[in-house]
Structure formats: C-alpha cells, structure tokens
C-alpha cells in the first residue's frame, strides 16, 4: 500500500509539474496575472507530493518491505535503522528521487522567499524549474521507478553496499545534490531573464543568494565525499580524479566563476551575457554529471548499475534543456551586450581573469573526463586518463587564480591605480616569499613543490589580512560595519589558503609504511611508534570484524593512544571492508589500516603519517561557511523585512555603497 501511495504521489507531482511548466510562462508572455499566480501554489503543492513519494520510499526501507525490488536489492533486515533510512538514496532509483525531491524543495523555497520579485519573474523562474522537474519525474516514473514490486517477495534483502554503510555516506549524497540541483535556480533565473529579455542589476542580485547557497552545499558535499574516501577506502587518498568526482567538480568550478561574475553583474552591470552563460553552464554541467554517472558511458570506481535506456533518456532531456537554453541564449543575449566600461587594471578585469581561468580549468577537467570516451567513439582504443594529466593541467591553471584572488579584493572597481595596488601588495608579497623559503626548511626538507604551495597559501593569508586592515583604516570600529558578505568573502578566501596548506603538506611530507607485523612488533614512522598488540574477532549488527589493537606513542615517550583498525566482512554480500583507525590532530593524522591476515598472529598493516591532512577538508568547510555567511548578509534580510512593512522604498536602501561591498 505505502509503495503504491508513493508511486501515485509522484504521478500527481508529474501532472502538477506539467501545469507549472506551461501555465505561468504562458501567463508571463500574455501578461495574465491569474496564470502567473498559479506558479507559487503549484510549486509548493508539487513539493508536498514529491515529499510524500520520498517519505513513502523511506517508509518502505524502514519497514523492511522486501516486496519492493529497490528495498530487496539495497537493504536487509539486519541493517541498522540509520542506514536503512540512508539506503533510500543508496540506489540509482532512490538517488534520482532524491534529485527530484531537492529540485522541488528549491522551487518551493523560491516560491516562499520571492515576495519582492516581480510576479512575471517568479512565474518564469518557477515555470522553468517545473519543466526540469517534469523531465526528471518522467525519468523516475518511466525508467527508474523506485516502487516496483517484486513478486513473490524476497525473504530478505541483499543489503546496502557496505561501502555506503557509513555516517559520511549518509550525508554526502543529500548535500551534493542540494548543490548540484541548487544551480537549477540560477539556471532558471538566467532562462527567465532571457525569456523576458531583461537584464538588470536586480536580476543579478536575486540570483546571487541562490547561487551562493547552492555553491556552499556543493562545496560541503564534495568535501564530505572526499573525506569519506579518505577514511573508508583504506588507502589514504582524498581525491582520485575519478569521472564521478569530476562530474561534481566541474559544476563547482563553473559555480565558483558564476559567483564572482554575478558580483560584477550586480555591482557594475558588466559581464551580463557572460554571467547568463555561466549560469546555464553550471547547471548544464550538473546535468552532464548526472548523465555521465547514470548512463554508464564512463567506467568509474563508482560502479552504479547502468542501463542504456536511462542514458538515452537523460541525453534527450539534456539536449532539450541545454540545447534549448543555449539557443535562447544565442537568440536573445545579443541585446544584453558586454556593458560597463573598465580599465585594464581594475577589479572587473581581475575578476574577468579569474573567470577565464576557472572556465579553462573546467574545460581541462572536462577534456580529461571525456577524452577516453572520445577516443573510444572514434575507434582509437580504450584508455583511461589519470591523476598525472589532471595535476599537470590543473595546478598551472589554478595557481594564477590564487594569485589573482589576493589582488582582486584590493583593487578598485573601474580603474585601479597600479602604484596604489603595488604599495598595498608589497608586504604580502615579501612575507609570502619569506614563508615559502623558511617554512619548508623548518619542516625539515626543502622542495620546490612545497615552497610553491606555501607561497600561494601565504599569499592568500597575507593579502586577506591587508584586505581587512584596509577596511579598518578609519578605526577598528569600522570593521564592525563591514557587511557579512565581506566577511564571507574573506573567510572563503582564507579557506582556499587553508586547503592549499593541507594539499601541499600532505603531498610533500606524508610517509607511508606497508609492513608485516606479528603480535608485539613495533613499526616506527616519522617519529611515531606503532605497536601491534594482536587482533580479536568482533560481531557487528550485519558483519563480523577482525579488530586490530595498535598502540601508538611518540618516539621520545609520552601518552599512549590505542587505535582499532578493523577488517570487516559484511555477511550478506560477503564483501570485505577496511575500517581505518585514524588519530586526528591539528598538525596531521596518524592513519592505520589493517590489511590481510597472513596467519593467526601475523597481519599486514598499513601505517600513514599525514601532516596537515585535515586542513584539506577544513579549508572546504571554511569556504562553505564563507558562502553561508554571505547569505546571511543584511541586504537580503532587509529586503524581506522592508517588503513586509513598506513595499516600495526598499530597493534603494538595499544596495549598500559600492566601496563597502565585497565581491
């Protein structure tokens, strides 16, 4: 009964979506207020029905209803409750439903938080989102129905993939999808503007918070996925340039470019056509990612069940949405123009440089991801493109972005006197060079790679300090007056610096030992003693594990920490899993993972010491936090409040003086 209810709710949502895709946009074209007014309630109703569908699926998992194929294939009666809930989005069908759920959630949020927007704009934005929802609901209902029954019912389920039975995996897909799908809002605003033929600063201002929110979620989602890979896959890496990772990284890069170009579009009225194109690109890359992951055209460690019908369906939908929006762009964007004048050295030109480089980086990642496919399509053989390619092209493209990042916030809009910039950047440049030379030496071993990484990080930190000091010229109380979006920018930029420190230090100074140990043996790895005290058998809810006991101590003596790396075998799928034991700290991790049992007392043990590795995810967290802080900026709230009390004069007060606003 519950699965049928869920199935029915999705069908209702599909029809609401059809109406939402047609009526409000037609209403906006005909200037019919009643048709346009349909958009908000329809978006909200659609969200309610998709939510019903989503929770019905969740209920089927929680109730162990093995008469549903999806539940029988991805759950088990002995699977703990939290993972039964997470299993709702652990399968292809469930994750696509989560996609639609997120999309309708964003549309519902737009409908609730758009009181100040002109009705025609709201109608067009929600109409476009409704159109996208129709495509994905059709996809779910026709090719990936999560509610299909299994007759006769299975006696028990096949269990959730053990890799996904982990707290990180519970939150990784929802956060990632929040980001992915969130770009649908920016996309819809862009298409709405193309439909209306109106681009103004207000359009950019409305798009900005939505884009920033989606970007912050995507940042968190990618970081969580990377962290999960680090502690769960047992080989200590944090990024593999796998096609599925790249699929989430490309929209992130385009989204980062979009955030910056939206700032220029809002403040200076420049880059408008470019911004529209980026908004289309960010969401198109999300769709492309969905296609790449779900169609199986690329092989990946993320071995999802794939199906060519699904691939064809998404490809056709992709062609309609992306092809349609780009046609509209070619047709309408001519009227937008590349308005706004600025000097060769100005904040605009620096942001343009940042945009070009970020887009080039996106292109480079896309090239590497699709290259094997292109060769295969041309009959030139099957190859795979690995980390060396990506590192070789990505680092040279991103290093100038980081350098520009230090300069941009210090440059004036329109025209930045070179002398003034040079004076402001003198001390950061000097400090960064000193840091780049001294710190690697202090760390014990100088290498050009580490020096360069630390140079970039130091540049970010020191220029950020200068940016803050610049604002405090009129006394420290000036700092309190700075907008939250300013602090958000500073925080996000500092996050990039923190991230670079993590990547550089791990790359430069990590040590790894693969050893054979018997009970009582000790291994010494960069100043730490690891003593293997044996392994014992432990029973989990749906697995048996060998739990190793490893005592860890600094070489010179001191506190003893006991680590428990595990080797689990999940009973239903018979799949062995490595649970690494990690002792984390500000200055680095000690990472121990249990390999194979050689005999009763002998195991292989993998020991890593990874300096500053947590700074990688800490940096991402700061970036996301910066985004969320920018979202909390007063001007977004003032607008809402002002709207409630006095609708008309709100606009003027909502735009703070140009000099005070962060990019």
């Amino acid at each position: 009964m519950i699965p049928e209810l869920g199935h029915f709710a999705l069908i209702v949502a599909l029809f609401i979506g059809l109406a939402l895709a047609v009526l409000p946009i037609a209403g906006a074209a005909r200037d019919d207020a009643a048709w346009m007014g349909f958009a908000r309630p329809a978006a909200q109703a659609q969200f309610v029905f998709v939510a019903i569908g989503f929770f019905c699926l969740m209920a089927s998992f929680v109730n162990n209803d093995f008469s549903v194929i999806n539940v029988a294939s991805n759950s088990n009666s002995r699977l703990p409750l939290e993972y039964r809930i997470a299993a709702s989005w652990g399968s292809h069908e469930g994750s696509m439903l989560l996609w639609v759920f997120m999309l309708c959630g964003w549309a519902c949020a737009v409908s609730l938080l758009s009181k100040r927007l002109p009705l025609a704009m709201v109608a067009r934005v929600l109409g476009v989102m409704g159109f996208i929802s129709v495509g994905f609901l059709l996809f779910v209902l026709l090719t990936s129905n999560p509610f299909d029954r299994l007759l006769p019912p299975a006696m028990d389920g096949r269990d959730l993939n053990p890799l996904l039975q982990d707290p990180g995996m519970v939150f990784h897909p929802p956060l990632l999808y929040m980001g992915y799908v969130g770009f649908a809002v920016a996309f819809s605003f862009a298409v709405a503007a193309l439909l209306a033929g109106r681009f103004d600063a207000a359009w950019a201002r409305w798009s900005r918070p939505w884009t920033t929110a989606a970007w912050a979620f995507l940042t968190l989602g990618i970081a969580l996925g990377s962290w999960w890979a680090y502690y769960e896959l047992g080989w200590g890496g944090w990024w593999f340039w796998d096609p599925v990772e790249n699929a989430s990284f490309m929209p992130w890069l385009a989204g980062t470019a979009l955030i910056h170009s939206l700032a220029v579009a809002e403040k200076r009225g420049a880059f408008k056509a470019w911004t529209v194109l980026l908004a289309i690109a960010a969401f198109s890359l999300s769709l492309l990612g969905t296609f790449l992951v779900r169609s199986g055209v690329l092989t990946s460690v993320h071995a999802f069940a794939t199906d060519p019908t699904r691939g064809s369906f998404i490809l056709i939908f992709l062609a309609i949405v992306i092809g349609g929006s780009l046609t509209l762009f070619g047709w309408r964007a001519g009227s937008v123009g590349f308005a706004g004048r600025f000097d060769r050295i100005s904040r605009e030109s620096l942001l343009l440089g940042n945009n070009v480089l970020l887009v080039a980086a996106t292109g480079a990642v896309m090239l590497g991801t699709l290259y094997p496919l292109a060769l295969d399509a041309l009959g030139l053989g099957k190859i795979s493109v690995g980390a060396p390619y990506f590192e070789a092209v990505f680092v040279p493209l991103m290093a100038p972005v980081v350098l520009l990042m230090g300069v941009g916030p210090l440059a004036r809009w329109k025209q930045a006197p070179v002398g003034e910039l040079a004076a402001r950047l003198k001390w950061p440049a000097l400090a960064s060079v000193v840091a780049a030379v001294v710190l690697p030496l202090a760390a014990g071993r100088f290498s050009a790679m580490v020096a360069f990484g630390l140079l970039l990080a130091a540049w970010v930190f020191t220029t950020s300090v200068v940016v803050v000091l610049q604002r405090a010229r009129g006394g420290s109380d000036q700092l309190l007056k700075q907008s939250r979006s300013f602090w958000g920018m500073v925080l996000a930029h500092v996050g990039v610096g923190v991230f670079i420190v993590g990547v550089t230090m791990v790359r430069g100074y990590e040590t790894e030992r693969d050893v054979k140990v018997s009970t009582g043996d000790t291994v010494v790895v960069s100043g730490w003693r690891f003593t293997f005290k044996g392994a014992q058998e432990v029973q989990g809810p749906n697995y048996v594990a060998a739990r190793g006991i490893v005592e860890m101590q600094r070489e010179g003596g001191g506190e003893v920490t006991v680590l428990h790396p595990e080797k689990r075998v999940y009973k239903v799928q018979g799949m062995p899993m490595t649970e690494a034991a990690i002792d984390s700290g500000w200055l680095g991790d000690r990472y121990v993972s249990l390999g194979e049992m050689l005999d009763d007392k002998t195991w292989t043990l993998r020991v890593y010491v990874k300096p500053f590795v947590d700074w990688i995810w800490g940096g991402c967290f700061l970036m996301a936090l910066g985004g969320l802080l920018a979202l909390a900026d007063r001007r977004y709230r003032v607008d809402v409040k002002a709207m409630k009390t006095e609708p008309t004069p709100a606009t003027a007060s909502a735009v703070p003086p140009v000099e005070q606003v962060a990019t």
Partner: protein
Amino acid sequence: MKARLFVPLALFLLLAVLLAVGLTLKPREVPSPFIGKPAPAFSLAQLKTGQPAFDPAQMRGQVWVLNVWASWCAPCREEHPLLVEAARQKQVTIVGLNYKDDPRNAEEWLRKLGDPYQAIAVDRDGKVGIDYGVYGVPETFVVDREGIIRKKHIGPLTPEVWNQDVLPLIQKLKG
C-alpha cells in the same frame, strides 16, 4: 543576432553527438582476457544432493553456457525466465554456477522460479568466481566444444542480447 553567441550551442551539439555515440559503446565490455582461452578447470559439488561433482571437462564435445547466479541477486531474477525458456526450447545446455549463496535459498528460488540448469555447481566462497573473473552477478559465459570460452556477458541477459548476440553465436558454434 550575432553568430558568436551561438558558439556555445555549437560546442554543446558537438558534445551531445559525442555522448550519443558514447551511449552505443560499452565501456564495460572490456575485452575479457578469458575470451579465446580454455574455461578454467574446477571441480565443485552440485547443489542437488546425490549428484557427482561438476567439472567443466565433462562438457567436452558440446557447446554450453555457464551462468553465474545467486538467489540474492535481483538482476538474476530478471534474466531467469529467459533462461528457463531457452532450456525448455532446448536451445543450449545451461550450467549454473551458484555464487556466494546459501544453498537453501538457492533451492527455494529454483522451486519458485523454475530450474533451467542441467547442473549447478556450488561456489560457496566465490573462489571459482575469481578464476572466471566474475565481478558482478549475473554473468554468462559461452563455451565451445573444445572447452574454449567464446563469449562473456556481464549483467542480466535481455531478450535482445540473447537473440542477437548469444544465440547466433551458439548456433554458429554448433555448426
């Protein structure tokens, strides 16, 4: 209208063509190293008690299909009617390799859904699966009269795959 504004569209169309071609390819169809090689030898107990151990050498002289399956595997259920039908029509001899399964569940499964297999070897711990490079269930191998693997299909057999790929090959091998 300026032509350069349509550049993004043109780029996207190129990409779409590439992706469409990509869909017709099968990246998972990595040329299996087993094709053209003799089927790895093994000797495993059969699922039905009282039957002698199964050894691929017994199949010399006939074209046969090895189908790797398990009762916990939902896609196996999907392809199963096709195998039952093929066995009923005596298209080919089908041998099952029951992979990492509980024999009781396996028997229950066959009783409910029908048994197309002439013999079922029980690979409880998946060791034979490793020899055959099994990395997903179901997988299906076509073996010729000389005991050489001629085809490997990963994933459930669909009527298209069976009628367009597998069956013509079997008929050709049978001469």
